[in-house]
């Protein structure tokens, strides 16, 4: 099993197979992320291809002190933001004041909180979570997907977004609570 940094160095020396190994390793997690963000398979495939091409052309800027996976997803995240900007779709920045309410957010368990997740069979719950994800603002959806689908750690997500770990953690918790609230509205 090759180290990502080693594959990058080999690619930069002209080894085509090294980059092929990178694509094979990351196509699935990257496509999973892009797919859940744009919600259309063909579009997600096109965007994932474009991101790999952009990654290849930017390889000479990669610094080995960083993790390749976080660097790749940073490129992917920025690519999506540019894509939405060109399509004139508002993709909320993680610091967008519209929904950011860290100061006022209450983490207290409400009294008589209804049980929502426990009501459904696991398969049905997964479908409802997928539907709820579509309603999340892009920035929160992105964090949710990275945490629960790509299974990045909070530190890795913080490295991708260039934010403190605490902020990322709060946002992920908010995303989960929003998903839960969407489920509550459906019952």
């Amino acid at each position, binding site marked *: 099993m090759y180290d990502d940094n080693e594959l990058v160095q080999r690619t930069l020396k002209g080894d*085509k197979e090294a*980059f*092929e190994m990178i*694509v*094979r390793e990351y*196509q*699935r997690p990257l*496509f*999973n992320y892009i*797919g*859940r963000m744009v919600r259309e*398979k063909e579009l*997600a*495939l096109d965007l*994932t*291809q474009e991101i*790999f*091409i952009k990654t*290849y052309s930017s390889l000479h800027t990669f610094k080995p002190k960083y993790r390749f996976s976080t660097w790749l997803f940073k490129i992917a995240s920025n690519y999506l933001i540019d894509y939405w900007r060109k399509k004139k779709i508002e993709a909320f920045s993680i610091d967008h004041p519209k929904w950011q309410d860290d100061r006022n957010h209450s*983490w*207290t*368990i409400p*009294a008589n*909180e209804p*049980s*929502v*997740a*426990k009501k459904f069979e*696991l398969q049905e*719950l*997964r479908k409802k*979570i*997928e539907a709820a994800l579509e309603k999340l603002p892009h920035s929160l959806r992105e964090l*949710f997907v990275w945490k*629960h*689908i790509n*299974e990045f750690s*909070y530190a890795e997500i913080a490295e991708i977004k260039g934010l403190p770990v605490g902020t990322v*953690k*709060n946002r992920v*918790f908010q995303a*989960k*609570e929003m*998903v*839960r609230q969407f*489920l509550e509205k459906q019952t």
Partner: protein
Amino acid sequence: MKCLSIDMIYEYLEDDLSPQKRETIARHLSMCVKCKNAFEERQRLLEASYSLPSWETPSEFTNQVISRIFPVKSSIWAWMAAAASGVMFFFLAFFVVFLLSRQNILSAPVSFSHSFLAYFENFFLILVKFFKLVSLITKLVPQLFGYFLKGVELVTTLLNPKIQIMLIALSILFSGLFIYVMRRNFLQE
């Protein structure tokens, strides 16, 4: 211990607490119904979230990416082999057609070459006429340009120099504006 907050529940579920804190929370959960329900709710939510189905790429995806980044270049030998195959196929078809038609095989190239020569001759005639047209245009252009310069000279004698300068400035301004608008439209597309 007072009731847990939602973020503490998530931290507990994600094993993001010190062992002492975990023990305290575990003890509280065993005693507090409200917190236990909230915990079980979020536990189920996380269980489903971590097991969401994966989006799969098609089997040829990697090859598609690699072929876009590293396009395959055909060698000159491949082109020569393709050309030789084409020529051989042409001659083979030619012989098959004449064998099936039972014509005299030797008479066919003669009649073919006659019609081919006729086409060739016509092509050269058209080419010659085209070059004649081009040389006529090249002779006309300087004449037309001469007339244009005479026209400009006439206008400059009729118009006030200040008006002439204003006209030149306006035309430069409009040209610049036109280029800017076209460039902006082009970039927007």
